Every structure is written in structure tokens, then in C-alpha cells.
């Protein structure tokens, strides 16, 4: 049986990272000049890694599918970034951020990685401020903070509702400086389609120039993928349209383990689905839960009236509203973690209390906070989100309707959970190296730090931690003895073979010449995944889901239609490649969900819940990372390998957000 070595350094958890850095191998400055590193992706993780590696002296080749590195979807993160600065003097510490993250992840993250994340979190804020990231400040000039779900301290730094944008532009500017310095070569509108393995090590990639349609070969001493998550498997998600899992799947097919694919985060505050022509779901920042209160009616007849449109939210008087999060979780109230909030919304809607015409929405109401703070302060905090909501729905959440008995009634937002982030991803060890030597995975596309559920404002933290402060160190431990090898020629047979395989795959897709568009099949996949592999899963449903995806795969293989030719730009062809991989990904999520007979974090199996409807973990049997190994064909079921989790610093407990 294959065993897994996660290469966690010796010593107590708080000293591991220092110990590692003290003893790791480094590359001397001259040798750095001889070493090439490919970084695929220019989001927070990719751009920060490429910039940092370039500054250190490595030659970096940086790829992105968009027209500019600044478009990567990190840009859309709204709420903030966590760090254990304790600027608010509210009792925060590295240990507490570490503890909250492990607990928030429902005790399924790797302890040593999370501690390191909390440890470097403070440097990220320092780094970003030095770059000129305009974080929000107090009148005295100090940095401001706010609180986020799953925490009882205010440790989230933010830049309006555009924190991801500002952090990404910071990383992009550092990257731009390195491009100018000649240390990073940028390849925009390029898509990685395969990783090239030579003598068991990752030594290059095959990438498609999306404008010319040509396949090109690139060689390097190490390959880093920073290509984000696989949320778009579900078609409708908060991801950008271009987000895909193709680069990650190509690594998986070449033997990199895929870990915990069933841990998919469903974000509680998104604008509800409005019709079958919808292309994506828009997130409303979790920060809204700081001042917004989530509710549905207490009475079923009121819910019915709302669904039929005979009543509006403001017609339901205060005493008939069920603030169900405050009721169920008094200690955390509206700020419970995302998985808990999402499931609670689903529970209410399943019982018939949904508030829109589809019955799949709950209210997020600012009446109380506007009355308490005044509209100006509320708009200062959330103005851009209110505007965005109004632009999409034609409803202004800051508009007062009436005052009854001294209580102001404003128009509430309607929200519903949507696929947002994927905690699972390519398996990496402590050094962020995958199971293929020389192949590294950073940011959302790896699996290690968030366990089964990610807390708000932790994704930005992890992306930048990996890119600025972890990978630039750990990759040297690998590269230290690689400079003795000469730069490889891309004429080697391994490159030939990889390119031929990609070429054959594209040819096959072009030659199906059926009737159905990529989107029509992708939408169907989305429905299957949401229905059977979504928020509430059962063994039976998952099996059914797998069967349905297999049937859809047949439809894809026999009835897909891609207009145009493979020469030049062909958007439909690129989408078809992505869908080909989403179909395999969907099944992988289902296999993992089926094998995990417990509920934890974003993975909820309806068979495993308490009487109160809370997730029921099974630490005795499932206290491990589920790593899936490809078996040579997308048709074959992958093999599960387990990486046991070992906790030293934290006592594993049942998650409690009630008291």
C-alpha cells in the first residue's frame, strides 16, 4: 500500500517553521541565475510567487489565461484578509488564529501547515502596506479591522469591499517590477494543458497560445501551479467564467494526488438564482453579516405569501420574523462560519420558509443597523455592495419603506447559498510540493490549510502566504541540487509525447461534430452536481450523481459541437477542454463524498447529522486526508490513499458555535 509522507518538520508546532528554515537547503545567488521556474497562474498566489522568485534571482516564466495578470479571479474577493496582529487588543494571537482556522475547518486541516499560515499572516500585512495597498484606516491613521464569520476577534484587514482587488494589484505591481527587471517573462492568453515529466520530475509544460491556437513547449527546473479551484464544475458559482480546473487535472492525470475534492464551500450570501439563462452567481460579501440580520418568516402562510408575491418582506412585522441564526447559535449569531450559515438557510427553505418566487432565498436585513447607526455609516461600510445589489435586482437595500411603532422597515436583500470556494485540491506536503517531485501547488489549487471549511478572509491570507512567504523558501530545498543539470531541450521525446497527447485530445474534441453547445452540456452537469453532490449529500444520491455524470460524459463524447477550426482563437474549443475536465472532476467530488461517511465542514452527508441537524463528524474513522490517485483513465475509479492527520497542539472537539 502506498503511504504518504507529508514531510512535516520535527519539533513543537510553534517551532516547526523556524526549524525548517534554519535547516533547509538554499540556492546560492549564482546558481539561482541558472534555474528556471514556471509559475502557472497570476492570482494572489501565482503573482506573489512569481514576483518573489524573480526578486530572488530565479528566471520565472509566468502564465495566465486572461489578457493581463491583473484579471485573475482573486481580484473579486470582497471582504478582507485575516492576520493575527492583535491591533485591536481583543486577545488575538498567532495561536488563536491557528486555532480558529483549524476549528473552522472542522478539524480536517493539517495542523503544521495551518500554524505556519497563522505565523506568516502578520508579515503579509506589513508587505502589502509597504507596497502601497490602501487598507482602510481609523481617523488616527492606524489600520482598521473588522470581524468575520467564525471568529470572536476583529482581525480582518480590508480595503472597502475590494480587498482582493487591492491585494492582487499589489502583487501585480511587484510582478510588473520584475517583468521590467527582466526576471519574469509574462505569457498572457496562454493556457497550460499538460505537465511534462522527465525522469520522474516535473520539467516543463505544454501550453496553448489561445490567440494563435498553437501548442507551445516550455521547460524549467520546477513547475508551480497556482490555478485556483474547481468551483465551476457546478456551472453556476461565484467564480469567474474562465475559472477552470484543467491545469490541476492535467497534474492529477500525470500522477499528482488530488486531496479532499468533496470539500466544496457553499457561500451563504449570494444573490439567488433568477432564471435558466443565468451565467454566474454574484457574491455579496460576508462582511454584510456584521450588520445585516438574516431571517425568514415564522409563519408558513407568510412565506407562502412572499413566494406568491402578495406580500413583501417589509409587510412581515418584527415579531413574526425568525432570525434563525441568532436563535440557533446565540454565541456567534449571524457570524457563524459559512458552512453552518448555508446549511441553516437550506434547512429553512427545505421546510417551506423560502422568501422568493422559487422558495430558495432568505432575507438579509439592514433595518436594525440603519436605525442604530444611520444610513450614512451603513453606506460607508457597504455602499458599493448596496449599489451592486440594486444594479442586479432593482432593489435598494438602503430604501426605507415605513416606520411602525418606532421600528423602521427597510427593503431587505434576498440571498441564497452558492458554490464559492474549493478547499480540496492538489495534494501537497509541508513544502507545498505535490506527489510529483518538482511540481508545486499553491493557493486555492492546493488543499492543505482550510480543512473541510474555509473561514472568511482566509483565502487571501493563504494565497499570499504561499506565494510570498512559503514557496519561495521551500522550493529552494528542492532546487538546491538542480542547477547541475543543463537547461533541457524541448525537443526531448517526453515533450513530443506530451504535445502529441494534447494535440490528439483537441483533435478528438473538434471531430465529435455533434449538435450540442458546450454551455448546454455544462449547465446539465451543473444541475447534476448541485442536486446530487451539493449542499446535502446521501450515499444513494451520490451514486445516482455518478451514474448521471457518466451518461452525460457519453453525450459530451458523441454529441458535442464546436464551431470553427482549431487554428486561431476559438473560445468554444477552450471551453470544451475545460468541460472535459469538469466532467471528470464532478465524478471525483462524488467519489470522495461517497467514501467519507461522516459530515464535516462543507461536506454534509444527510445520514450523518445530530438530532438538531448539526454535522456529525466521525474522527475515529475519517480523521484523514483523502488522496485520490489516477488510475490511467478517466473512466476508471481512482484509488483512495489516506494521509492520517495528527494533532499535537489542538484537542479535537465537536465544533460549537452555540455558546
Amino acid at each position, binding site marked *: 500500500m502506498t503511504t504518504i509522507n507529508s514531510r512535516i518538520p520535527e519539533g513543537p508546532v510553534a517551532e516547526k517553521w523556524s526549524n525548517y528554515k534554519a535547516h533547509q537547503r538554499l540556492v546560492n545567488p549564482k546558481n539561482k541565475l541558472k534555474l528556471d521556474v514556471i509559475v502557472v497562474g497570476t492570482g494572489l498566489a501565482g503573482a506573489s510567487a512569481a*514576483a518573489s522568485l524573480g*526578486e530572488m534571482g530565479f528566471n520565472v516564466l509566468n502564465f495566465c489565461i*486572461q*489578457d*493581463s495578470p*491583473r*484579471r*485573475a*479571479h482573486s481580484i*473579486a474577493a470582497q471582504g478582507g484578509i485575516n492576520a493575527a*496582529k492583535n*491591533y485591536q487588543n481583543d486577545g488575538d494571537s498567532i495561536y488563536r488564529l491557528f486555532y480558529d482556522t483549524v476549528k473552522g475547518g472542522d478539524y480536517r486541516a493539517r495542523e503544521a501547515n495551518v500554524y505556519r499560515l497563522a505565523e506568516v499572516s502578520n508579515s503579509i*500585512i*506589513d*508587505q502589502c*502596506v*509597504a*507596497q*502601497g495597498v*490602501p*487598507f*482602510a484606516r481609523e*481617523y*488616527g*491613521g*492606524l*489600520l482598521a479591522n473588522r470581524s468575520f464569520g467564525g471568529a470572536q476577534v476583529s482581525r480582518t484587514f480590508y*480595503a472597502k469591499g*475590494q480587498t*482582493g*482587488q*487591492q491585494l492582487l*494589484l499589489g502583487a501585480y*505591481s*511587484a510582478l*510588473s*517590477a520584475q*517583468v*521590467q527587471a527582466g526576471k519574469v517573462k*509574462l505569457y*498572457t492568453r496562454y493556457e497550460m494543458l499538460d505537465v511534462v515529466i522527465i525522469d520522474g520530475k516535473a520539467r516543463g509544460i505544454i501550453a496553448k497560445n489561445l490567440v494563435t491556437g498553437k501548442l507551445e513547449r516550455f521547460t524549467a527546473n520546477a513547475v508551480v501551479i497556482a490555478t485556483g479551484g474547481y468551483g465551476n464544475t457546478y456551472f453556476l458559482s461565484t467564480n*469567474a*467564467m474562465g475559472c477552470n480546473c484543467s491545469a490541476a487535472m492535467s497534474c492529477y492525470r500525470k500522477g499528482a494526488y488530488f486531496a479532499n475534492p468533496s470539500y466544496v464551500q457553499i457561500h451563504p450570501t449570494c444573490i439567488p438564482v*433568477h*432564471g435558466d*439563462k443565468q*451565467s454566474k452567481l*454574484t*457574491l455579496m460579501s460576508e462582511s454584510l453579516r456584521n450588520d445585516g440580520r438574516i431571517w425568514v418568516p415564522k409563519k408558513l402562510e407568510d412565506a407562502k405569501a412572499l413566494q406568491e408575491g402578495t406580500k413583501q418582506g417589509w409587510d412581515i412585522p418584527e415579531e413574526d420574523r425568525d432570525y434563525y441564526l441568532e436563535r440557533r447559535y446565540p454565541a456567534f449569531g449571524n457570524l457563524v462560519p459559512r458552512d453552518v450559515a448555508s446549511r441553516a438557510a437550506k434547512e429553512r427553505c427545505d421546510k417551506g420558509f423560502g422568501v422568493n418566487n422559487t422558495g430558495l432565498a432568505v432575507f438579509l436585513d439592514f433595518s436594525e443597523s440603519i436605525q442604530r447607526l444611520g444610513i450614512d455609516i451603513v453606506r460607508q461600510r457597504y455602499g458599493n455592495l448596496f*449599489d*451592486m445589489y440594486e*444594479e*442586479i*435586482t*432593482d432593489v435598494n437595500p438602503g430604501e426605507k419603506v415605513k416606520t411602525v411603532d418606532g421600528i423602521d422597515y427597510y427593503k431587505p436583500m434576498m440571498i441564497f447559498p452558492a458554490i464559492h470556494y474549493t478547499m480540496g485540491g492538489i495534494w501537497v506536503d509541508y513544502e507545498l510540493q505535490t506527489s510529483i517531485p518538482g511540481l508545486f501547488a499553491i493557493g486555492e489549487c492546493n488543499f492543505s490549510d482550510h480543512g473541510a471549511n474555509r473561514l472568511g478572509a482566509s483565502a487571501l491570507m493563504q494565497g499570499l502566504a504561499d506565494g*510570498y512567504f512559503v514557496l519561495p523558501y521551500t522550493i529552494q530545498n528542492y532546487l538546491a541540487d538542480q542547477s547541475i543539470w543543463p537547461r533541457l531541450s524541448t525537443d526531448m521525446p517526453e515533450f513530443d509525447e506530451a504535445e502529441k497527447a494534447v494535440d490528439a485530445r483537441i483533435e478528438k474534441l473538434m471531430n465529435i461534430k455533434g449538435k450540442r453547445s458546450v*454551455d448546454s452540456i455544462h449547465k446539465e452537469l451543473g444541475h447534476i452536481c448541485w442536486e446530487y453532490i451539493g449542499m446535502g449529500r446521501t450515499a444513494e444520491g451520490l451514486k445516482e450523481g455518478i451514474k448521471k455524470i457518466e451518461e452525460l460524459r457519453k453525450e459530451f463524447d458523441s454529441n458535442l459541437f464546436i*464551431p470553427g477550426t482549431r487554428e486561431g*482563437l476559438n473560445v*468554444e474549443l477552450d471551453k470544451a477542454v475545460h468541460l472535459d475536465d469538469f466532467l471528470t472532476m464532478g465524478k471525483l467530488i462524488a467519489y470522495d463524498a461517497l467514501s467519507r461517511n461522516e459530515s464535516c465542514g462543507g461536506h454534509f452527508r444527510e445520514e450523518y447529522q445530530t438530532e438538531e441537524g448539526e454535522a456529525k463528524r466521525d474522527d475515529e474513522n475519517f480523521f484523514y486526508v483523502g488522496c485520490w490517485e489516477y488510475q490511467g483513465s478517466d473512466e476508471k475509479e481512482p484509488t483512495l490513499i489516506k494521509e492520517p492527520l495528527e494533532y499535537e497542539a489542538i484537542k479535537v472537539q465537536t465544533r460549537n458555535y452555540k455558546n
Partner: protein
Amino acid sequence: MAKNISFTIKYWKQNGPKDKGHFDSHEMKNIPDDTSFLEMLDILNEELIEEGKEPFVFDHDCREGICGMCSLYINGTPHGKTERGATTCQLYMRRFNDGDTITVEPWRSAGFPVIKDCMVDRSAFDKIMQAGGYVSVRTGAPQDANAILIPKQNADEAMDCASCIGCGACVAACKNGSAMLFVSSKVSQLALLPQGRPEAAKRAKAMVAKMDELGFGNCTNTRACEAVCPKCETIANIARLNREFLKAKFAE
């Protein structure tokens, strides 16, 4: 409640930078007015593919107004007309009427050559950024983030300047094809913060020089750029850029 509208869409087809290009048109029937503009184009493309035709190509990605990828010139206005700043992806069909003819063109500017249809090459913006749009700081261990106090007003102002999404609507709207609003927003953000001061003059000079070199025009204060900016950047930024630029010149 959503109502349905029908209209004609005229869209630009151009096969590469050297092709002359032309308009195609298509009748759109019963489109719910709560559909976003880009979802409407998705429907158009599904119908074209159904007919065996190649889809209409345009850039888009996040579809929530922040990535800056979408870039359509709709009925003569970059990103189409809304009351407040919005990108193409945030434009909804309720802004249009039954029976309308809607014209969709690419950004037209020497600085942004067409790749295909309405997809243009905006790599010039990256090159301008590379010329100086940063604070030269290495990854490592800078001082504590609270070591330098920054008055809230300056931080807020810097944040407003930093909101630019690099979409290029300013260039598309400008009769001179000037990129001054884009350049000045970045120069302003960094000039307003103590971290950006040491390189402020050098930055202004380098970015303006690169902008000129890449074929963007000059600013003649017509204010067309700020009228279409989806992030409401103002020409006050341009004034600030000019001040920084002059300072740099005098220092020579």
C-alpha cells in the same frame, strides 16, 4: 417582475487586426429584462451555434464588475449607459426597450488592436504598469504595518484612485485615445501614500513616457474619460499626475 423585450442586436465581426471588419445583426426575441447584457450575448451565441455559426467573441470574466475584462462599446458609450459607474457585465437589459436596435463595437483605439470581433489587446496597459506602477519593495520583512500612520482621508483618497480596474473605457471614450486617466489613477494612488513618495516623480515620468511611446494620445481635458469610468475615477487624478510630472521635469 421581469418583463420580456425583443430587439435587434448589431455586433462587430472582425477576424484579426488586419481584417476590415463589418457588422452582423440578429433578432433577439423575448429576453427577460432581468438578464444581464453579457447573459444576453450568451443567448445570442447559443443561437448562433445552434445555426452552426461561429460565436461572437468578446472579453469577459468575473461578471461582477471588478476584473476589468469586459470591454464593449454599446450604442456609442463604453460599457453602455447607466446612472452610476458600471461595467458591461453589470448592465442589465431593463435599461433597454422593446424594439430597440443595440449596437455593440470593440474599444477603438490605436493602443488597443483588435484580436477578434470585440476582443482587443490591452497589453499596453501592462507595459505602462511595468514602466513604474509600483513601489520598489522586496518581499521580506518590512517594518510593522502600523509604523507609519496614514491619515484616514489620504488612505481613503488613495483607495479611490486605486479602484481603477484597467478596463480601458477611458481610452475608448477619448477622442485622442489618451490613457491619462488610467496612468494618473495609479500615479495618484502611490503619490498620496508615504510609501510611494520616494519614487513619485520618477514614476510619473516613466509611466507617461511609456504611454506616449505606445501610441496613446494626449489629454485635452474633454472629460469624456471620467464620464464613462465604471469606477468613477476623476480627472482630478490627471491634474495630480501633471503636478508630479512637472515636479519631475523641474528636478532635471
